[in-house]
């Protein structure tokens, strides 16, 4: 049974998250306010009946209130006070729901780690504090003596590429590296509002969690991850909500993160070399089709690639504007060139691989049930069963299925 003091803390925390005063919650539960105060101080333990009423009044799972083993993860309190204004087309309530969803995944990840008695790896990127800002964080005003945020963003990207050993080639398949080196857990969410491209949450226990809109095209998804990585390096405590679309106001922090994303995904020296090789191969020309192809090579959007080439003065400054005026449609060009835009993500790729492995292990070891597995994988129970079975079996040449235990620890193999 959960100690009374811990239960009291959870109840008080849940009340604050629900945005209720003590008086409001007391009324909902059928208490006097002084009784609720005593409960939240740990001086009075609610009865079982009262606990059920608390869960209903707070609209939380009873399990989350009373379970003994839970990580202490919670998003940074400052971030929980989400901005009251709209982000692009997205209302504050929708934002808050999305933030809560990502926080849930982050918390479940921590719970899986706690259950398996493993810690989150903390590599070199997590200790890179060269680009951290303090105080205002550059949001809204330039700090005294601050460097140009765009230049800083490019520098930061170079530093990160060096740490990850990427050289100046395209940054493909770096997700696991980012998790190992930065502790960045990236979740691709199907149910994010269309106006939000990405979210960064950070907390002492939660670590860094990034939520990316799974319904966006691949290039936009990758940009969003890189943008949030920029925030992680610069000002993680503040979190971030990245709108899918132009921002009304770009402060120093956003300038830094956009510059970081551009340089991380499309490093200047590599892009220049790639551009020159293609121009040479094209007999001195660089048709729009090559622009589409090089965007695919770096797995970024056509718009991002065109802007980058403009910024590096490799193509004329108004190229993107001109192409838009001519109603050029990059998606159709990509299809015509038979390039895969990579829009559809396989379901399991929406989660960090380590998260999935820990979930399977917890299920195998009977520390969670089938319903928990479905919740962790954001799907219905039968789909969760299928995913689990597919992960631990393979089809041999004669269509016979061979059962593997992919969660088996090789180090403990007998």
């Amino acid at each position: 049974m959960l100690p009374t003091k811990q239960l009291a803390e959870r109840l008080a925390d849940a009340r604050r998250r629900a945005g209720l005063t003590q008086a409001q919650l007391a009324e909902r539960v059928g208490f006097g306010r002084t009784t609720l105060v005593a409960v939240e101080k740990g001086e009075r333990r609610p009865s079982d009946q009262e606990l059920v009423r608390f869960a209903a009044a707070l609209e939380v799972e009873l399990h989350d209130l009373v379970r003994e083993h839970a990580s202490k993860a919670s998003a940074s309190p400052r971030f929980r006070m989400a901005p009251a204004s709209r982000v692009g087309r997205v209302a504050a309530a929708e934002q808050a729901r999305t933030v809560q969803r990502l926080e849930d995944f982050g918390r479940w990840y921590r719970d899986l780690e706690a259950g398996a008695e493993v810690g989150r790896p903390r590599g070199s990127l997590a200790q890179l504090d060269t680009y951290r800002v303090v105080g205002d964080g550059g949001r809204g005003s330039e700090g005294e003596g601050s460097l140009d945020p765009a230049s800083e963003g490019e520098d930061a990207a170079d530093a990160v590429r060096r740490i990850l050993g990427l050289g100046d080639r395209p940054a493909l398949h770096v997700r696991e590296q980012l998790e190992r080196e930065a502790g960045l857990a990236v979740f691709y969410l199907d149910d994010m509002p269309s106006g939000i491209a990405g979210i960064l949450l950070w907390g002492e226990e939660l670590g860094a969690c990034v939520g990316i809109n799974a319904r966006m095209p691949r290039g936009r998804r990758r940009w969003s991850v890189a943008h949030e990585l920029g925030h992680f390096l610069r000002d993680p405590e503040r979190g971030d909500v990245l709108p899918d679309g132009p921002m009304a106001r770009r402060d120093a922090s956003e300038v830094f993160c956009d510059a970081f994303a551009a340089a991380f995904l499309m490093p200047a020296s590599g892009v220049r070399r790639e551009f020159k090789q293609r121009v040479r191969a094209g007999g001195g020309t660089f048709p729009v089709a090559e622009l589409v192809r090089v965007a695919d090579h770096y797995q970024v959007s056509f718009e991002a690639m065109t802007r980058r080439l403009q910024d590096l003065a490799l193509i004329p400054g108004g190229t993107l504007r001109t192409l838009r005026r001519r109603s050029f449609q990059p998606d159709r060009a990509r299809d015509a060139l038979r390039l895969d835009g990579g829009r559809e993500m396989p379901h399991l790729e929406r989660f960090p691989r380590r998260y999935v492995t820990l979930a399977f292990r917890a299920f195998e070891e009977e520390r969670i049930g089938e319903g928990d597995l479905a919740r962790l994988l954001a799907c219905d129970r039968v789909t969760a069963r299928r995913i689990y079975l597919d992960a631990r079996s393979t089809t041999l040449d004669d269509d016979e299925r061979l059962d593997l235990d992919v969660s088996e620890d090789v180090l403990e193999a007998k």
Partner: protein
Amino acid sequence: MRVVDAGSLAADACLLINLFATGRVIEVVEALDLRLVTTERARREAGFLQDRDDDGEIVKVPIDHGLLEASRRLQVVELHEADAPALVRAAEHLSDVDAHVAALAIGRGLPLGTDDRYMRRVVSMLDDGVEMVGTFALVRAAADVLSWSRGEIAAVLHSLRERACFIPPRDDPDAAWAKAVIEGAD
């Protein structure tokens, strides 16, 4: 686990899915004279099976609980204040969906139908007097009562695997029986 006597059986989402996947759930519960008792949340969570479309792609197929409810073989109940102690004890270990069904079994003295290994372990720990039964046992008992042929049983077991991706508990005493039936029918 042995098959339970006729009467009410607390059924979790896992068991409901499996029984519906057999394609013969009404026959099974009527043969055993069972009434499945569950909660609204568990019923909702037993929402989908899978099938394959004409292109062989997997599609989700909603489960229609209506026929079973109409025949009064599926009863959806709400918990009362008296169930709170069992519910809270169960919720210390189980998600609310499963804790509600566990509370039916523990608090109201019903046998529990589930194939979920974690659910079985927790309920045993909370009350080792709770009788438990799984899908294989129910199918086997119904097959006996209804005198199903080996081919009919194999078809039901095949449907369980294909439509519900059924994962039998590792220590299921009827797993060997099921394997023998399937292999014998191949």
